[in-house]
Structure formats: structure tokens, C-alpha cells
């Protein structure tokens, strides 16, 4: 066998990495994915969390959604307190409950390729603040919104800023498994922060009650981190300054409280913090504060994670969320939903099925055309192999950067494959043209043409990254990725393969 050149090795390595990035073997795994667990339910308290893989309920194997529905149907609804044994992520959870099941599940991903909303189904809202926001105001808005969606227990949500060619900035909210009317309610609803003791409101978020929230320095930060059974926990603390009226309210309410008998040094009720009427945190009140009109209070909280760094980051994120809500109170900006879509997951399935058929047909037709033209199986095979490699490596990169492949991204990959074949035809035709020039010279000219075509595609697609709030970014990204993979990896390898074929 002939020795493989560096460029061919590079192609082989890129292909292996792409397959690793896509991880198609994930489809062999058995179980169902837990998408969300209702906070404060028995299931949550026992330690079942979103992201775990559920494999068994009451010793019955759960391989897929059908198994899950069947087993759940036979257990629920519960009439009395019942023991349920759940195995998830290899851990056994024993739950005694008479609640309804408060877990949402979905099928396990079959690979690391993520599909966009238009293929997987879900709701999407493009939201425009009525006034133009600075980038820090925009990030506050996004923090408040994601916080709110999290508080409502909605998983699979992405909230991100987008801007367009005219300098408008938007917030894009994408949620899987939610209807557009739900999303509309959530996004347009005003975020409301309340701190209560019992049923009495002490202060609410916003400028009226809160004069200042410390965000950094000595008055805000991570205090300590410690190890627990299941990982690390980091605690944060920051100071909040209240207006005199809010401080007065605090004094009145706490003066009526008595001392806590079980934990000394604290009052018998906690300061409970609510966002849109959902409890997010409860703080113990030190007994020295009883009846005092204090304007400075210290808010604490924590974040957990498997590693210390994760716990630290999580604590910092939680702190930032809480600070944002305290400062902004409700959303300070009037929002307009300028685009609102709900896409049925049914349509995406049909589409994916058709795509596989499409790939087969395109490969078959192009093979046939090449075979008729060049009458050489080796050349035809190497062109098809190159096309396939380009698509695979592009998908691998998409999986690696967590890109959500939507329909337009896939159109970009197909268009990229089309230009790929064109380039290879240029290489073949240059190399088999008459014998006066050396092969090296001919390949060099072929690459001049190919590089020219490459830069014109890049130039043409570049404006799409911004136009239309980036809604067509996927098309531009995958086209550019696939032509770049072509020019950097597959085309040089193809030229070397062709040289070898010519020599034989």
C-alpha cells in the first residue's frame, strides 16, 4: 500500500474527531432523560434532578419513552402513600409519596448534534425593548428574564441578546415544549420581587424600597466554600440598603416576632424572598434586629456543584440574579414581542426523514454523473468520499460548538457540498489536461480558482451574520464552515489522493 501523505492523515484525523464530536453511539444508550423536576416536590427533595438518565422504576427496566409511559400508567394516579423506587444515573432513589408525578421526561439524545427550534419543535419569541438599551442594561434584562423562566421551572430555555444591521438590539427567547401563548405571558409579565416575613411585605424590588445593592468589593462576594456528600457548596453574601420607610416596616414587623427555639440567635420567622410569587430564598433574621429600623441588611445564598469551581460559578450566578432582581425590581423596560413562533415537533421529524432520503439520492445521482463523465470508479469514489467527509466534519464542528442546526443551517451544508463537488471537478479537469505542464503547476492553478471561489462565498455570506437579527446566521455559518473545511482539509487531501490515482 502506498504511503499516506500528511494531508491525507489530516483528513483521517479530522474525520475521527468529527465522529467523536457527534458521538452517534449515544443512540445505543437506554433510558429516558429527565428534563425537569418540580422544585419542592418529594422527587426533588430526594435528589432527583433534571439532566439525569432514568433507567428503572420499581425494578422495571425503562429503555425508552414507551416503556416509561407504560410503567407510569400502571402506577399513577396514587390513592395512598406508596413506595416508588427509581434508578437514575446509577443511583437508587426510594420515594414515599401520594403526589402526582412531578417529573418531565424526554427521549435521550441520539447524538451530540443539536437541532434548532424549527426541527425539534418549541416556541420562540423575539422581544424588542421600546427604548434602545446599553449592553449592560440588555444583560440585566436577560438576567431578569432567564431568572424568571427558571423560577417557573422551565427547562430547555435559551435567552440571548441579538442585534441587527441597523443597530437594533433584541432579546431572543427560545423554549422547547412550550406554547407561544405561555411564552408570551411569561415574557410580557412584569417581574415582581417581594421580601416577606410571614404574610407581611417588608420591601419590594426596585428604587422605591431599595436605595443601593452592593455588587462588588467588601460588601458583596463569595464567602466560603465547603465540601458536602455530593460535591461542593459555596455561599455568597451581599449588602442591600433599604429606604427609611422600608426600614420602618422591617422594625414594625420584627417587633412582633418571638425568638426561635430550635436555633438560637434567630427570630422564629424567616425573611422570605419571592419572585413573581415563587419562593426563591429564605433568610434567618438575627435576634439583634428585632424591632430595629435597620437600613442595611445582608442577603445570603449559595450555589452547588460537583467541583469547587462549579459551585463557585453557580454561587456567583445566583448572586448576580438576585442582585439584578433587587435592583430592577420589575422589568424597567417596556417590551414588545415582535416575533412569536410555535413550531410543532411533528414537522421536524418528517423533515429529518426526508433529509436522509435526500442525502442518498444526491450521492447516487452525483456518483452516476461523475462515473459517466470520467469513467473511473476510483475518481468517482474519492469525490463522493470527499463530499461525505466535508458534511461529516461540518456536522462535527457544529456539535462541538453546540450549534443548534436549524433548517437553514442544513441548507447551508447542502449548498456547501455543492460547491465542494465543483472544486473537485476543477482539480480533476486541471490535472488530466494535456501533458505539457507539470502536475504540480496544474494543481496550483486549480487551487487559485478554488481559493478565489472560496473567498467570494465568504464575502457573499458574511453580511448574513447580522442581517435580520441573525435569524439566518445558521445558513451563513454552516456554508462558511463547510467551504472552510473544504479548503483547509478535504481539498488538499483530495488533491493528494488524485495524484496517487494518476500515478497508478
Amino acid at each position, binding site marked *: 500500500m502506498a504511503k499516506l501523505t500528511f494531508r491525507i492523515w489530516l483528513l483521517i484525523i479530522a474525520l475521527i474527531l468529527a465522529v467523536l464530536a457527534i458521538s452517534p453511539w449515544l443512540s445505543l444508550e437506554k433510558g429516558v432523560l429527565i428534563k425537569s423536576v418540580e422544585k419542592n416536590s418529594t422527587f426533588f427533595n430526594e435528589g432527583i434532578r433534571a439532566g439525569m438518565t432514568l433507567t428503572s422504576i420499581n425494578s422495571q427496566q425503562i429503555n425508552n419513552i414507551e416503556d416509561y409511559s407504560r410503567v407510569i400508567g400502571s402506577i399513577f394516579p396514587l390513592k395512598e402513600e406508596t413506595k416508588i423506587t427509581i434508578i437514575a444515573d446509577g443511583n437508587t432513589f426510594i420515594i414515599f409519596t401520594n403526589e402526582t408525578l412531578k417529573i418531565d421526561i424526554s427521549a435521550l439524545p441520539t447524538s451530540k448534534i443539536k437541532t434548532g427550534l424549527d426541527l425539534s419543535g418549541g416556541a420562540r419569541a423575539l422581544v424588542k425593548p421600546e427604548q434602545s438599551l446599553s449592553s449592560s442594561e440588555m444583560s440585566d434584562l436577560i438576567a431578569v428574564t432567564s431568572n424568571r423562566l427558571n423560577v417557573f421551572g422551565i427547562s430547555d430555555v435559551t435567552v440571548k441578546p441579538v442585534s441587527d444591521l441597523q443597530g437594533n438590539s433584541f432579546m431572543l427567547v427560545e423554549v422547547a415544549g412550550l406554547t407561544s401563548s405561555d411564552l408570551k405571558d411569561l415574557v410580557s409579565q412584569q417581574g415582581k420581587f417581594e421580601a416577606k416575613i410571614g404574610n407581611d411585605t417588608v420591601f419590594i424590588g426596585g428604587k422605591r424600597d431599595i436605595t443601593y445593592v452592593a455588587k462588588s468589593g467588601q460588601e458583596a462576594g463569595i464567602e466560603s466554600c465547603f465540601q458536602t456528600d455530593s460535591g461542593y457548596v459555596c455561599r455568597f453574601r451581599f449588602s442591600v440598603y433599604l429606604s427609611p420607610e422600608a426600614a420602618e416596616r422591617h422594625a414594625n414587623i420584627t417587633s412582633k416576632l418571638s425568638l426561635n427555639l430550635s436555633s438560637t440567635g434567630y427570630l422564629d420567622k424567616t425573611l422570605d424572598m419571592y419572585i413573581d410569587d415563587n419562593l426563591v430564598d429564605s433568610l434567618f433574621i438575627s435576634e439583634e434586629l428585632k424591632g430595629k429600623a435597620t437600613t442595611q441588611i445582608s442577603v445570603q445564598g449559595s450555589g452547588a456543584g460537583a467541583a469547587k469551581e462549579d459551585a463557585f460559578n453557580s454561587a456567583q450566578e445566583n448572586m448576580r440574579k438576585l442582585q439584578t432582581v433587587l435592583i430592577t425590581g420589575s422589568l424597567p423596560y417596556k417590551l414588545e414581542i415582535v416575533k412569536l413562533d410555535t413550531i*410543532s415537533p411533528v414537522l421536524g421529524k418528517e423533515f429529518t426523514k*426526508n433529509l436522509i432520503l435526500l442525502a442518498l439520492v444526491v450521492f447516487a445521482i452525483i456518483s452516476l454523473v461523475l462515473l459517466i463523465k470520467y469513467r473511473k470508479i476510483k475518481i468517482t469514489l474519492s469525490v463522493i468520499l470527499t463530499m461525505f467527509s466535508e458534511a461529516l466534519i461540518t456536522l462535527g464542528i457544529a456539535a462541538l460548538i453546540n450549534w443548534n442546526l436549524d433548517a437553514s443551517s442544513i441548507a447551508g451544508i447542502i449548498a456547501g457540498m455543492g460547491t465542494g*463537488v465543483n472544486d473537485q471537478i*476543477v482539480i480533476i479537469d486541471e490535472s488530466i489536461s494535456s501533458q505539457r505542464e507539470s502536475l504540480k503547476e496544474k494543481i496550483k492553478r486549480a487551487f487559485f480558482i478554488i481559493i478565489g471561489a472560496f473567498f467570494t462565498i465568504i464575502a457573499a455570506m458574511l*453580511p448574513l451574520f447580522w442581517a435580520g437579527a441573525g435569524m439566518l446566521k445558521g445558513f451563513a455559518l454552516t456554508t462558511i464552515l463547510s467551504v472552510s473545511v473544504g479548503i483547509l482539509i478535504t481539498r488538499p487531501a483530495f488533491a493528494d489522493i488524485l495524484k496517487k490515482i494518476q500515478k497508478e
Partner: protein
Amino acid sequence: MEQQISPGKSWYDRQYKLLIVIPIIILIASIVYISFFYIQHNDFIYKDVSLSGGTSITLHGDVDSAKLESDLKLQFSDLSIRKLTDLTSAQPIAIVLESSAQPEELKQAIESSLGYPLTDDNSSTEFSGSTLSESFYKQLILAIVISFILMSFVIFILFRTFIPSIAVIFAAFADIVMPLALINLLGIKLSAAGIAAFLMLIGYSVDTDILLTTRALKKREGTLNERIFGAFKTGTFMTITALFAVLPAFFIVTGLPDSFRQIFLILALGLLADLINTWLTNASIIKWYCEKKGIN
């Protein structure tokens, strides 16, 4: 090939300047048509709701569109209904209703006509506000202009000579105008993705022009006619295989989203236009240029 083209004055040598007349006539006809279209509609294209603002509801499955149309036509005067059929099985897949109305209004009217509620499983709803759509549209047009300018820069840097570069850019311009006229003639409503396809066309269609210009100017083998003819053989084959990659995508992926197919229809029309513009217009200009400059 050497035998086919005689060293003396061949038919191509005598007639090549005339060949350019064909694409010029088509181009002028396209521009005139688009101009009339603009005067009539106050716009260059028919826009779908993603560009004009409004609601698009897709009903999945076999739905009686005639009943829906008669029920809704009175309430929504600008309603348009399209049926989508699976080409391989000839089964109806879905119908798409578009109107400038608000999503709730249209949804309610559809529900009362069908007699069942619209859910996630049987429908998709897309709504775009009119201001946003208008700004999307403007930006996409701006993107086409920017793309075209950037592409022109690349071509000038590549060839560093005026006339050959202008010839390529002119061919790319015609590659956009001709399909645009045809799309309007067919009455197709363009989506945002459709306009993105025109951008793609700018990049996609010039590779045969680059091939032609490179072979004519930089290759040292054979006569000019041989080089142009060699480029023609390679280039047309490139375009044909590209069509074979793009057309099945248009015919097979009849599932949704519908805008996906539009991308491929426009690319296919553009590639067809490119055959004319590269091998009649650009080839004639480059041949004339080479003869003037004494490049044989």
C-alpha cells in the same frame, strides 16, 4: 479537441460578439419586467409574512382546504392558502395559511372552521410584527448590496485587471436579476430564507467565471479558443452537478419548513442563468479582451 477547432477563423471566432446579444436581451427584458413590477407593486418582489408582517399557520396532515378557504375568506381578505404535497407518495402533508392578521384572530377562525383546537401536535404558528419584518427586509436588501460589493472586491484582488474583473461582476449581477424576474413571473412569495439564497447565489455563481478567466488569462497551454472551450467543458459540468445537488433538495424535501425549498429553487434558477451569463457574456468579453491584448 485540437482537431475540432481549426487554427483559422472558426465559427466561434466570427460570431462570438453576436452571442453576447442573447444574454443582453434577456437581461434587459428582466430589468424592464422588474421595473414594471416595482411600479405596479411598489416593491421588487412578492413578500411572504416573514418579510411583510403577519401570521402564518401551518396545519399538519390532510386538511380540507376548500372549506377553510370559503369560511375564512370573508373575514381575512388577504388570506392565502397553499397546499403541500409529498412528491414521492403524492399524499397531502400540510396546508399553510398566511394573513396579515394577528395570530390569535386567525387561530380562532381556523379552530371554529375545523371544529377542533389547534395544538402543538397538529399545527405551527409563526407571527412577525410588521415593523420588524420591514426592517428584516431592508436589512436583507442591504446585505445583498454589501455582499455584492465584497464579492467585487475579491474579484478585483484576484485578477487585478479591470475588464476581466468587470466581466465577472457583470455576470454575477445578471445571475441575480434573471432569477429574480422569473420568481416574480411565477408569482412566488419570497421568504427571508429566499433572499438569503440570492446572497448565496452571489458567491455560488462566480466560480465558473473565475475558472473561465483563470484559464483564459493564466494558462499557457493551447490556443485561446481551446482554453475557453476547455473551461466551458469543465464549467458546464460543474454547473450540471451543482444542479443535481440542488434540484433533489427542492423536489424531495417537501416536508417543512417550506422556506427551505425556496433556497434550492432560487439556487437552481441562478445556476441556469449562470450557464448563459458565463458562457455567452463573460466568455465573449474575455475573448475580446484577450484578442485586444494579444493574449493567445
